[in-house]
């Protein structure tokens, strides 16, 4: 079986140092790291946004070699921004890059069917997030690249989304998801990847990662009696931009 995702030497000048990244079989990988550490840059490099260096192969195929229609079956990217340039309806938005049936299905999966004809500029930020997530899920790509998908979602929908991502993995899709909620990430992810100053500094099984000194050092927090608290000593890393 071919490797689902293999990235070699991917880099973005000034934001992401040359990095290798791989996913052998479908799994849910969560990217964690402080603000500006390079989570978004890694997602950009994987989605081939911003003319990154290096090479990405998904199912052995280079995304650049495919026309847009086939590329959306290979990968889909959800940006952290919830801005939408034009006031399309929710359904029209989900249909950008997906077929009509797929769009209907994705809308139903996120309980959006009754909003199909509502204009996206008249939705709340959280509602718009769900529409954009449906847009990213609709083409059922091999690889989902999601930047903070749970931001703006209420607790119920945070859990429902993570469950939905587990289903996607069970059906053979891979997912790389940047997020800030360490406990939610650890609960659902197969693997946590820790990013700091534009490089991957550690990765491993969620529980082991949460307990690691590396993660606690990078974030400047520690776990005391099951709760996260600021480390008493100042954090190790400088404020490198990303």
């Amino acid at each position, binding site marked *: 079986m071919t490797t689902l995702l293999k990235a070699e030497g991917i880099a973005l000048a000034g934001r992401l140092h040359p990095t290798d990244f791989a996913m052998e079989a479908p799994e849910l990988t969560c990217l964690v790291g402080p603000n500006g550490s390079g989570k978004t840059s890694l997602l*950009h490099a994987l*989605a*081939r*946004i*911003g003319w990154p260096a290096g090479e990405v192969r998904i199912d052995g195929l280079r*995304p*650049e070699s*495919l*026309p*847009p229609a086939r*590329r*959306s079956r290979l*990968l*889909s*990217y959800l*940006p952290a*921004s919830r*801005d*939408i*340039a*034009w*006031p*399309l*309806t929710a359904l*029209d*938005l989900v249909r*950008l*890059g997906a077929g009509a049936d797929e769009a209907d299905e994705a809308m139903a999966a996120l309980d959006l069917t009754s909003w199909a004809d509502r*204009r996206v*500029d*008249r939705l709340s930020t959280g509602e718009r997030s769900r529409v*954009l997530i449906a*847009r990213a899920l609709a083409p059922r790509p091999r690889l989902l*690249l999601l930047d903070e998908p749970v931001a703006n979602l209420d607790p119920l929908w945070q859990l429902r989304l993570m469950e939905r991502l587990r289903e996607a993995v069970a059906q053979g899709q891979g997912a790389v998801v940047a997020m800030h909620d360490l406990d939610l990430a650890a609960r659902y992810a197969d693997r946590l990847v820790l990013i700091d100053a534009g490089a991957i500094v550690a990765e491993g099984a969620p529980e082991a990662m949460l307990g690691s000194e590396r993660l606690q050092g990078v974030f400047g927090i520690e776990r005391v009696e099951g709760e996260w608290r600021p480390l008493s000593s100042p954090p190790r890393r400088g404020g490198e931009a990303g």
Partner: protein
Amino acid sequence: MRAVTRLLLLALAMLAAFAASLLLPLPPLAALLGADRSLAFALLWELRLPRAALALAYGAMLGASGAAIQGLFANPLASPDLTGTTSGAALGAVVTAYLLGFSAPLALALGAVGGALGALLLLLALAGPRAETATLLLAGLAISALAGALTTLALALAPSPFAFYDAYEWLMGSLVDRSLEQAAFAAAPALVAILLLLRLARPLDSLTLGEEVAQSFGHDVRRLRVEIVCLTAFGVGACVAICGAIGFVGLVAPIFARRLTGGHPGRAILPAALIGGVLLLAADLVVRAAPLGRTLPIGVVTALLGAPFFLWLVAHMRWRLGR
């Protein structure tokens, strides 16, 4: 398919406006048909056809390029006028006209295309290739003002009162007294540019989700930007060279067009072209019907009708401006 029906209706409206432009006012044509067939034919062929063809081509070009530029900048206030394209083309043409006269259409067209391209490249250089919308629009306004001032300077330094008057009248925009060759000179580049712009509908639609997502779809946003800039400069420049600067159609047509495409900016290019054609044909009919004793410049008509619409638009854009 409702979308197809709407497009067909628009196309019909355009044909009707074109036919009206050929046949109205009817009495002189009817009288001539009775008296001298060849004279009636000459009136149709040499006076009304170039005028109608120019109105259609220029209007369609403004509509299509307005839709493309608005989609590219993700802003319903962007248009060839507001990005400095039209005024750059006008400056290029006026300078060329002083050097070579208004009777050299090829030189005039090259001057206008050069001016439009110069304005758009200056815009990209000033605002940067990945500029914020606000920066781009401000830079566009600055370039418009600069090109306008330089055009006024060129007028002030006119070699003779006749040159001044020629340039002044041409600047106000006019479709009158152009030959069929001149009409073809504007219409052919406009048609090519519109057809090539139509190819960009899908990438422009995906820009609704932002540049990053459009890139993740595999659309080269940098190339898209260059293509739209060059096609707009080419098509609008050629039209400006023949008819002078005509404002507001490029702003208004795409806004109506997007109402027909559910907000999709790229899909709006074709309906915007049709609406632009209808608008300019209609404005030209207003010019003919106006009981002023002399011909009103069509640029004045579009501005008088377009400016109030622009103000209404600004007042009703709370969903974007209030962000």
